[in-house]
């Protein structure tokens, strides 16, 4: 923290984007700032709301060279941005160097990464000497947004000021602890079940509570991440998820809402209501979803029934719902998650998993749900 550990004395803070860089569309700037705020919101009791005008706690601006605070920017490169610790007036404000080339990717300077770092300052964090920390002073795109995760050093720092998120298990770690996140589900727990499972650009994602396991062909060991590390605006404890390859999107469901994500970006206009997909009002949540890559048909499982959705026409097929047991013999109702792989459908139910051959229309194997996690 800064000397004297300045912090906000309230948990709801306002922010305003005073002006915009011409490097990016305004909505992308807004989205990057919002995503950066959610990084901190996810691990503290802090909440943020945007003011369209007037004086906000956190005033955000882009400026080049001398810009009125006696800390002039220095053109392209070197100093990218600076921010002030919590307090009134210019304190808590964030200034981005307009001479940088602001982007949302790996070229130029990634606005989300820099914003998340600078907002750490506005909340009271000083620089960290831990290279893996977001608050390390040197820009490093290896912390790229698709792999973004607060380090434990960042979490310890911010929680030393504000405490943990009221609904999260991520808390201040005792100094002697070697296990920073004891609430992470144990991947080889024989009773482990999943909330949802999906593919994503050739990888497999297994969702559980606030976490996901990521299994890629490049890393034989499953990686565990906070869902919020990839998509800060998504809820935890998801109901269902599936990838629509033709749209390069993963659709994620919780309750009567669903979100579309492309890579690390939650698409604008979401969440949407599941009723826009054609579900009747009696459906209050989706148990599981899977999209057949070949037919472009998506199957939604709800209790003992399933619906079939046409991704090309973006319409529910007629003649549904049907009973799961009629078309997927051997599969029990109340499916947790479904995955398509190697020509089979894998139905997850509690700690068990049924491998279903759609051609033979029969269950060919029964496995533990966590068999995918090398257990």
């Amino acid at each position: 923290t800064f000397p004297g550990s300045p912090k906000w004395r309230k948990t709801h803070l306002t922010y305003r984007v005073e002006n915009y860089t011409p490097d990016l569309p305004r909505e992308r700037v807004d989205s990057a700032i919002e995503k950066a705020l959610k990084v901190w919101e996810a691990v503290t009791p802090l909440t943020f709301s945007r003011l369209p005008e007037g004086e906000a706690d956190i005033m955000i601006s882009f400026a080049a060279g001398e810009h009125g605070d006696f800390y002039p920017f220095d053109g392209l490169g070197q100093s990218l941005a600076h921010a002030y610790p919590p307090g009134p007036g210019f304190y808590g404000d964030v200034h981005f160097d307009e001479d940088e080339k602001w982007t949302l990717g790996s070229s130029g300077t990634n606005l989300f990464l820099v914003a998340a770092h600078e907002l750490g300052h506005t909340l009271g964090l000083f620089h960290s000497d831990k290279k893996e920390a977001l608050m390390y002073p040197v820009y490093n795109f290896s912390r790229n947004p698709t792999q973004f995760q607060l380090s434990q050093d960042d979490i310890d720092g911010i929680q030393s000021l504000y405490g943990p998120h009221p609904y999260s298990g991520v808390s201040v770690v005792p100094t002697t602890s070697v296990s920073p996140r004891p609430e992470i589900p144990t991947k080889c727990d024989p009773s482990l079940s999943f909330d949802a499972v999906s593919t994503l650009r050739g990888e497999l994602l297994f969702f559980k509570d606030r976490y996901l396991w990521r299994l890629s062909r490049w890393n034989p060991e499953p990686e565990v991440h906070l869902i919020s590390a990839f998509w800060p605006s998504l809820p935890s404890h998801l109901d269902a998820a599936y990838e629509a390859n033709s749209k390069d999107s993963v659709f994620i469901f919780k309750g009567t809402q669903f979100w579309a994500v492309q890579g690390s970006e939650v698409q604008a206009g979401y969440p949407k209501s599941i009723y826009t997909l054609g579900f009747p009002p009696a459906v209050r949540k989706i148990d599981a979803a899977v999209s057949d890559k070949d037919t472009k048909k998506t199957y939604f499982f709800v209790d003992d029934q399933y619906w079939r959705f046409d991704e090309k026409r973006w319409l529910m097929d007629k003649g549904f719902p049907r009973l799961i047991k009629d078309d997927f013999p051997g599969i029990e109702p109340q499916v947790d998650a479904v995955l398509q792989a190697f020509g089979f459908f894998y139905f997850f139910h509690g700690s068990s998993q049924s491998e279903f051959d759609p051609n033979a229309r029969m269950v060919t194997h029964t496995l533990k749900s966590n068999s995918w996690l090398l257990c």
Partner: protein
Amino acid sequence: YPLQGAVRQDPPSMDFAQHYLEKYYNLEKNEKQMFRRKESSPVVKKIQEMQKFLGLEMTGKLDSNTMDVMLKPRCGVPDVGGFS
């Protein structure tokens, strides 16, 4: 990293390093001992302080590893002290 590209063609001057230490590590602006090799030199100590903070080997010299890190884009908030 265009700045790194520039390094190979035109090594940065010691003025750059001095400016960096002044800006981010609170080096006194009137310090004139930049090239003094004594380990007790305030500048050498400042370089070591910077190297320690940035996770570099504490040589007290502006070696290539140190310069590489110094030339990378970074946050404008000082690592030592603060805005005054």
